[in-house]
């Protein structure tokens, strides 16, 4: 599926890291940046100075990623931090998220834009409840590639047997979760073994180092490639003599491919029209694919506004007021069944009422809890809602853009929850 000579693989890789405070997650990222020479001298100076101030004896690379004062003082990661580095092969965006159970929501946030999840496991402790939790969240958010880093191999005498035991256990888990592309690497983030440079201590491991793996892992651009969807963000009307009749529908293609000449249907009006041109800054494009921000012009003068969607005539999204979805609750105030929230899906907003809770997910055992169905902060649950007007959507696994939504509290304006449509 090579599109117009563009490579079919992504040159920008977004990944999220999950692991508990003690798993060495920040150390891994610090090590990655340090060994790939992406830490600059002034940042290094900072780490050394902070480390001294905090009384750390060895160079503490986690101080690089923990950006807030409270994080450095307490030695914990509170919020998602984004890190950037590049190698000749690829550019990387890391969403570094805290791993504690009370930060499930941060992990969900980091995972929502990730192509790949890196999950750390302490070789001394093996597969824990939190490993289940991290893996489950990755699969819930439809991340299709996972790397399990079995860390702290230095503390288990570089034992291949221990590594193999953990790997076998993980293989069972990923089958259960249905994750397709999974990789395993034994590492020592602290000493840099198998992070950027190959480890001599782990000579029994013949696979790629961590950096080599993320540089070469094939991440197809095929997510959301099937269903042509174009949510209208805003209307461009120049009102100038040169472009007197120009009317462009601005938006980012949420799925599939659009080309001039394509017949499209506008939702919710169901009116049909034809694409006359696709423009970006005076350049007319021969096509626009998922992810591209463009302006589309149509053959007919139609009343279209923000929140409407252009779709192909033969592949409609679901149009309904009743939606079943998985949610992750973000706010201190628990979800109210029967409560009304403002829902944002793409560029569309609608009121929605929580009708019922089907089950609450026990993310430590991966069992569905049908009895205790109160949904509080960091909980993941399956619920059904009814919206005040029909909305159009796809299931999340089919299209991550048209299948995701957030819930907003109208009183406080806070984002209360994230939802993935089933």
């Amino acid at each position: 599926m090579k599109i117009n000579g563009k490579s079919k693989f992504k040159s920008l890789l977004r990944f999220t890291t999950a692991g508990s405070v003690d798993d060495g997650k920040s150390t891994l990222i610090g090590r990655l940046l340090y060994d790939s020479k992406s830490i600059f001298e002034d940042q290094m100076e900072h780490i050394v100075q902070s480390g001294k101030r905090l009384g750390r004896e060895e160079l503490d690379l986690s101080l690089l990623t923990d950006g807030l004062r409270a994080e450095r003082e307490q030695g914990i990661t509170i919020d998602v931090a984004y890190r950037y580095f590049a190698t000749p092969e690829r550019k990387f965006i890391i969403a570094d998220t805290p791993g504690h159970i009370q930060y499930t929501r941060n992990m969900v946030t980091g995972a929502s834009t990730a192509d790949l999840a890196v999950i750390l496991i302490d070789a001394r402790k093996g597969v824990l409840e939190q490993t289940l939790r991290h893996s489950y969240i990755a699969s819930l958010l439809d991340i299709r590639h996972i790397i399990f880093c079995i860390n702290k191999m230095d503390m288990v005498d570089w034992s291949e047997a221990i590594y193999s035991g953990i790997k076998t256990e993980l293989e069972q888990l990923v089958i259960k979760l249905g994750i397709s592309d999974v990789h395993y690497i034994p590492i020592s983030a602290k000493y840099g073994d198998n992070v950027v440079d190959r480890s001599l201590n782990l000579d029994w491991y013949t696979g790629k180092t961590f950096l080599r793996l993320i540089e070469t892992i094939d991440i197809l651009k095929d997510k959301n490639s099937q269903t042509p969807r174009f949510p209208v963000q805003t209307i461009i009307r120049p009102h100038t003599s040169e472009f007197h009749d120009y009317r462009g529908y601005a938006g980012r293609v949420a799925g599939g491919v659009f080309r001039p000449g394509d017949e499209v249907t506008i939702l919710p009006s169901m009116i049909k029209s034809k694409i006359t041109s696709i423009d970006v800054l005076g350049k007319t494009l021969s096509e626009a694919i998922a992810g591209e921000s463009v302006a589309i012009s149509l053959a007919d003068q139609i009343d279209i506004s923000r929140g409407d969607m252009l779709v192909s005539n033969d592949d409609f999204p679901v149009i309904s007021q009743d939606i079943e979805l998985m949610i992750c609750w973000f706010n201190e105030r628990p979800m109210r069944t029967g409560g009304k929230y403002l829902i944002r899906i793409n560029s569309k907003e609608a009121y929605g009422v929580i009708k019922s809770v089907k089950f609450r997910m026990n993310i430590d055992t991966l069992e569905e809890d049908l009895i205790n169905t109160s949904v509080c902060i960091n909980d993941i649950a399956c619920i059904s809602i009814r919206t005040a007007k029909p909305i159009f959507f796809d299931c999340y696994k089919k299209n991550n853009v048209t299948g995701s939504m957030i819930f907003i509290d109208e009183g406080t304006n806070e984002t209360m929850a994230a939802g993935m449509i089933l």
Partner: protein
Amino acid sequence: MDTLLRINDEHLKELEDEAVYVIREVAAQFENKVILFSGGKDSIVLVYLARKAFWPAKIPFSLLHIDTGHNFEETLSFRDNLAREFGTELIVKYVQDSINEGKVSEEKGINASRNKAQTVTLLDAIDELKLDVAIGGGRRDEEKARAKERFFSHRNEFGQWDPKNQRPELWNLFNGRKHMGEHFRVFPISNWTELDVWQYIQNENITLPDLYFTHRRKIFSRNGTYLAWAPFMQLKPDEKVFEADVRCRTIGDITCTGVTLSKAQSLPEIISEIAATRVTERGGRYDDKRSEAAMEDRKKEGYF
């Protein structure tokens, strides 16, 4: 690190698509909107991205410049020309006015800077102009507190940022809802690095102030940073002014913007210089060196 030059720039397209999307969300979700314009490369790139987002219509935002009075002169004429060329309204607010009105007092001493005072002028401008959003060129790779910043960053009625209680931001769903008196700062190029910005400037033929290219200038050295000399700057006894070939990596208030010794005359030369450099661009920013959490503290107060 010169191998970085070979990195393909396909990822720039994805970053551009993301930034244009964010800028259009601002247009759709807010009423009174400005782009915070400093004259620096990041805000110039923002203006170009905004043009791309709304072409062939004009940019639906004004440009707001908070003028410390301690500028590199070249940036002011560049600013005026850019606003004229793009047909956007330019609003300038002066830190000197805030000082004259007694809202903020001038820092004293050798390291005196109006960098912090800018926040007062900025918040007053936001209040006076009834802005509900200000778009900024901040990037997460600049500084560790910025790495925690959202695309849509909420500010309370005092203009303050609460880093520990930020709204979660998932997928491409931005929640810009707010109460009266509150506002948002939006950072469309959050995910860009310094190198991305330069590569984009080259690809898009974006014109920059000459300060970014090598030029002869009077400078002096302070705590390992070269600062441009200006008549109103106080020197310590051991500091000597001398001439050198330099260029700016960032452009801000002259009192705290470091310059780098460089002979780079063209964009390719600058890009190879940056790819090979071992100090971050904010490493030359004197304002960040004041304390470990200098940026975090200023951002909490309402800084850019």
